[in-house]
């Protein structure tokens, strides 16, 4: 009897261990291993093709920080991310508050339209907008006599970033709205009713009931948007491919160009490592802030 029980436990623990094998192996080979050899290469001068290479320490990192193209890409990403986050969070917050009102007519129609961009691919939408900026918007601009949009805004160095921004926001607002709406709806209705009985005004209700339920989701939305702003790639390839004259060359586009088009393999990985460190830092700050909130 005793022996049998022991045997059963072994079968279970062995099976449990085997359950973890397929995912772990896949993850190690196609996720962790590339990251580790990537980190290694970032300290070498390997260009991706040559047979041998030598360790050059932090040289790639130092070059990256002093390289004007890298600096421009960083500036582009910071500007782009700031504008994108403000627009996306602002718009989606307004929309989520509107959709949270059950008295809205045609609710399902509005929701159906507003949430639609969330399921579309970035590349396909980018290509559609590319045609629209090229052929349609200038026609409207000329018709309404607005010089700013009378020519293709993607073709001008100063305005191309706004073209990319419009498409990015167009795509991202849907998902952010849905998430914020879910946060709003997690606030139980009877809390509001109790607050009304206690004579709370609209602001007090928002401040003390809505906000605590909204904040955790808001911080998730914020972090996701910062991440997607810093790694924006697909829509830039579809819209401008980094042009005109490098005006919309984001970090992700630059890393791709260096790594695959200009055979600066190890250097590109160093640039990607810098991006990773920034993103990790932001994620870390965000999680520690929201953890503090929970304790509170």
């Amino acid at each position, binding site marked *: 009897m005793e022996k049998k029980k022991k045997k059963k436990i072994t079968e279970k623990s062995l099976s449990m261990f085997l359950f973890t094998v397929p995912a772990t192996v896949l993850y190690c080979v196609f996720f962790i291993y*590339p990251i580790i050899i990537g980190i290694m290469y970032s300290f070498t001068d390997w260009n991706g093709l040559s047979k041998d290479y030598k360790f050059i320490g932090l040289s790639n990192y130092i070059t990256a920080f002093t390289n004007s193209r890298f600096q421009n890409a960083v500036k582009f990403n910071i500007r782009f991310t700031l504008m994108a986050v403000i627009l996306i969070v602002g718009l989606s917050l307004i929309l989520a508050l509107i959709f949270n*009102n059950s008295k809205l*007519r045609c609710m399902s129609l*509005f929701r159906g339209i507003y*949430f639609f961009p969330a399921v579309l691919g970035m*590349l*396909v939408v980018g290509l559609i907008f590319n045609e629209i900026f090229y052929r349609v918007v200038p026609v409207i601009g000329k018709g309404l006599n607005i010089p700013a949009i009378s020519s293709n805004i993607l073709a001008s160095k100063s305005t191309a970033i706004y073209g990319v921004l419009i498409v990015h926001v167009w795509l991202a607002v849907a998902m952010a709205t849905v998430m914020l709406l879910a946060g709003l709806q997690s606030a139980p209705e009877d809390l509001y009713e109790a607050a009304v009985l206690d004579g709370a005004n609209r602001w007090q209700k928002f401040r003390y009931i809505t906000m605590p339920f909204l904040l955790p989701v808001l911080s*998730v939305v914020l972090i996701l948007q910062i991440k997607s702003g810093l790694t924006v790639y697909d829509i830039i390839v579809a819209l401008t491919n980094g042009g005109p004259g490098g005006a919309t060359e984001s970090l992700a586009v630059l890393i791709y160009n260096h*790594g695959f088009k200009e055979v600066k393999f190890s250097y590109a990985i160093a640039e*990607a490592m810098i991006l990773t460190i920034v993103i990790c830092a932001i994620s870390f700050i965000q999680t520690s802030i929201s953890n503090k909130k929970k304790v509170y």
Partner: protein
Amino acid sequence: MKKKPSIFTYLFLICGCVLIIFPMYLAVITAFKPTEELTKSIFAFPSSFYLGNFMEVIEKSGFLNSVINTVFVTVVSCVGVILVVPLVSYAIARNMDKKRYYKYLYYFLLIGIFVPFQVKMMPLVQVMSNFNMLNVPGIAVVYIASAVCEGVFLYVAFIHGVPGELEESAYMDGAGTLFTYWKIIFPLLKPMTATVLIMDGLWFWNDFFLPLLALNKTPDNYTLTLFIYNFKSQTTVNYSLIFAGLLLAMLPIMVLYVFLQKQIMGGLVNGAVKG
């Protein structure tokens, strides 16, 4: 209890709707116009529903092949994720309090959430090329591996909420671990499985970066996004053709969205809010 929305709210919403629908509207009407009609007016409705553009895209060599490739990648990767990820999550969730191996494994698998794709893309292409995996089945395997982190995170949290009594009684009756998992646990995970399937399915279908890196050299391996991307750069003059191609690429998702909007949005929210 709540106030009725004012007329300005509706005006605001309608403006937004126009901004969202307008690009789609333009794409649709343009795709239905024959070339001669393009020069007249961009905004006018087509005089008839001309299907020639769609036919031309479909008959283009490589289009159907790319659809098959995309369906293959999406289905195989999704099935792979569903076979592999809940399994490891179950083992972790039920053992991480007792055994160190599972606890550390959990954190190890979560590292990937923070790492952007750019940092591993170049070595990854090398690894894939060493294994002779720069092809359609190859990227399916990479997708499964890439979906592990988020999947484990979501499933482990979900399994923690599933009471252990059912499986305990099955173990008492002498059922094997795999049998218990498959017959008792896996069916209970259905809501999370739906969430993961929707999230990952949309990702695999719409993804452009990995196919661009791994498959762009051989047109036989093109996925739909890659086909459209290359098609666009070859076709510059006839843009009704381009719109027809883009609409065909979006069609399956549009149809799914119309019929399953609630489920899709629910799944996406579930995945994103917890993830």
